[in-house]
């Protein structure tokens, strides 16, 4: 069992490392796949494990993009001047400036988002059930609208980051591994977190918050810390995305409420809520579905996607993992500790 497990994770890791070299022309899609996996896993931290269904986690993605860009630019130039609508001048970045901006920007984005999660959560976690979903959705929409009116960060123009002047294939690999390493760290972190007392406590909040409170769990503290951890990772990948996309704008790219903001929820539902592997499998399934429809159903892709959401939510809300659990209970029941690894095989 033990060896099997090591072998299993070893193979996965090998695939992760080898993928961009085996399929170099797909490395952008692979990077996007990691983005989906990461945001789905972070959504599941509050949505699946803690029972708070946020529709506004995209707030941290968009904010992450902007914070990272502002840090990267601010290290070298005046931000307001750089984003100015008709800015005549040219702004060049050396490779060192670019990489420093990338690293500090992405980390700074994560930290900023974690802090804003604590502040926002303090207010929003008072809301229950659908009101929490509506409240978080409203926060994300409002943030996008406000940023789009904020000239200092370019307003509706958005921001165009510099293009890395070094070797181009290297940048692509760099971006891919930035996503992949974040994803692997997040996975290991969550695998550990869900086995600790902390994991048990947030599950208790999901199952019955009143009772958890009565048992002496300081629920607000747990909720805030969970959301902050989740926001940190979304902020970081938001920052990486900013450098991947280079040019982005507030309403459709950064605070893309009705795209990625909802897709992450659908991914989790597809794979199975409240499981470690569900969001990952869901994100992979979703990404494949999306690429296929976007390629072969031009014009109809959104109809197909809407239909996928409806069908998933109405008929398969337990997702693939839930379905497996009812079909093959022995995969889950025999060795509880091992359930996640088994389900994949």
């Amino acid at each position, binding site marked *: 069992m033990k060896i099997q497990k090591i072998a299993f994770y070893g193979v996965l890791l090998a695939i992760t490392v080898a993928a961009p070299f085996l399929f170099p022309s797909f490395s952008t899609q692979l990077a996007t796949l990691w983005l989906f996996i990461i945001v789905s896993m972070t959504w599941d931290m509050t949505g699946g494990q803690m029972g708070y*269904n946020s*529709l506004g986690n995209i707030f941290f993605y968009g904010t992450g993009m902007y914070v990272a860009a502002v840090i990267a630019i601010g290290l070298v130039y005046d931000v307001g001047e750089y984003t100015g609508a008709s800015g005549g001048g040219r702004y060049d970045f050396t490779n060192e400036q670019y990489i420093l901006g990338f690293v500090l920007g992405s980390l700074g984005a994560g930290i900023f988002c974690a802090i804003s999660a604590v502040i926002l959560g303090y*207010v929003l976690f*008072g*809301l229950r*059930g*659908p*009101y929490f*979903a*509506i*409240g978080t959705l*409203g*926060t994300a*929409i*409002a943030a996008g*609208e*406000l940023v*789009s*009116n904020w000239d200092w960060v370019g307003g509706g123009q958005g921001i165009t980051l510099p293009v890395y002047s070094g070797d181009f294939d290297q940048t692509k690999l760099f971006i891919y591994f930035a996503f992949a390493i974040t994803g692997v760290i997040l996975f290991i972190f969550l695998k550990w977190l869900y086995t600790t007392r902390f994991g048990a406590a947030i599950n208790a909040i999901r199952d019955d918050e009143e009772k958890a409170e009565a048992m002496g769990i300081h629920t607000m503290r747990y909720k805030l810390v969970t959301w902050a951890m989740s926001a940190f990772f979304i902020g970081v990948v938001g920052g990486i995305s900013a450098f991947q996309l280079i040019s982005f704008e507030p309403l459709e790219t950064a605070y893309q409420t*009705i795209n990625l903001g*909802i897709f992450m*929820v*659908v991914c989790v*539902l597809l794979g199975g809520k409240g499981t470690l592997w569900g969001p990952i499998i869901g994100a992979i399934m979703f990404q494949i579905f999306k690429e296929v429809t976007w390629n072969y159903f031009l*014009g*109809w892709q*959104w*109809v197909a*996607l*809407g*239909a*996928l*959401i*409806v069908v998933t*939510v*109405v*008929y398969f*809300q337990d997702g693939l993992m839930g379905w497996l659990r009812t079909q093959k209970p022995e995969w889950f029941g025999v060795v509880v500790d091992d359930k996640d690894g088994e389900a994949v095989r």
Partner: protein
Amino acid sequence: MDQIMGNIDLLIQFPIVNLKIILDGVMIGALFALAAYGLALVWGVMNVKNLAQGDFVIGGGYVSWWSYHNVPYFHPLLGVPVAFIVMWALGWLTYKLVISRVIERDLFTSLLATFGLAIMYAQLMNLMFGSDTQSLVLDVTGLGLENNYYFADGLIDLPAAKVIGVVLAAILATGVILFMKRSRMGQAIRATAQDARAARVLGIDTEKVYAFTFSLNSAICGAAGAIIVMVWVIQPFYGITYSIRAFVIVTAAGLGNLPGVIAAGLGIGAAEQYGSHIFGIGYQQAIAVILLLMVLIYRLVQQRRNRQVMQ
């Protein structure tokens, strides 16, 4: 900042502007209220939070627009009843295919499922009607009216289309209130809203009540859309603005409070107009959403206070 002060200054310098803003707000608010009206019904009766609300509105607009361009001698005003009927049918279909399966489920389910529907409907409309903004010009000179009435040196304008829109909205709203109070079906709906299981025991076919309620909602939205296409413009992807407004209004008014929905609708219409006058029209959507958040937080504080009183 200067701009904001300048805009406030305008309000003081020309007091008549306040009247103009309130009138505009009321006319917009009346139409928002219609969309919210249906939402309050389905939310209250079947506990479904319909995020596709705005898409039903836009759908109604397109029904009217399409009929106008394809049916000879079609008067835009006819669009209102036609949209009501067509959207009733679409609502019924939606209920049978999707909504009937999410009623008993948790609250998040209906939110997500109707979100999926909203995406689908918007895209289908885009494929069917194209993504151009569309509108109909209501010409009432044939009815012995003028198309536009002007007051206060032309500063206040009352387009006939908007006035008729408000009147139609009022008729629809009263119609629904009367229907709820007087008819058998209305009583059945109210009974189901209060306690679905008890209603079932008493022989009310709740399934039928649900189907009826949802169709009625969709039909009201459709009628609102047919009015909106005469007053402003529609576009396949504009649904979300009406959905957001509907949620703001219902959350502000509270469930099961139909007159409250109308009051909240008018109030929010006016607040939005004031907001966009003072801060600039670019903030209009932000103002609507921030109002929603403020209402939610206000409710939360109120709830906490109530809980403390109870303890």
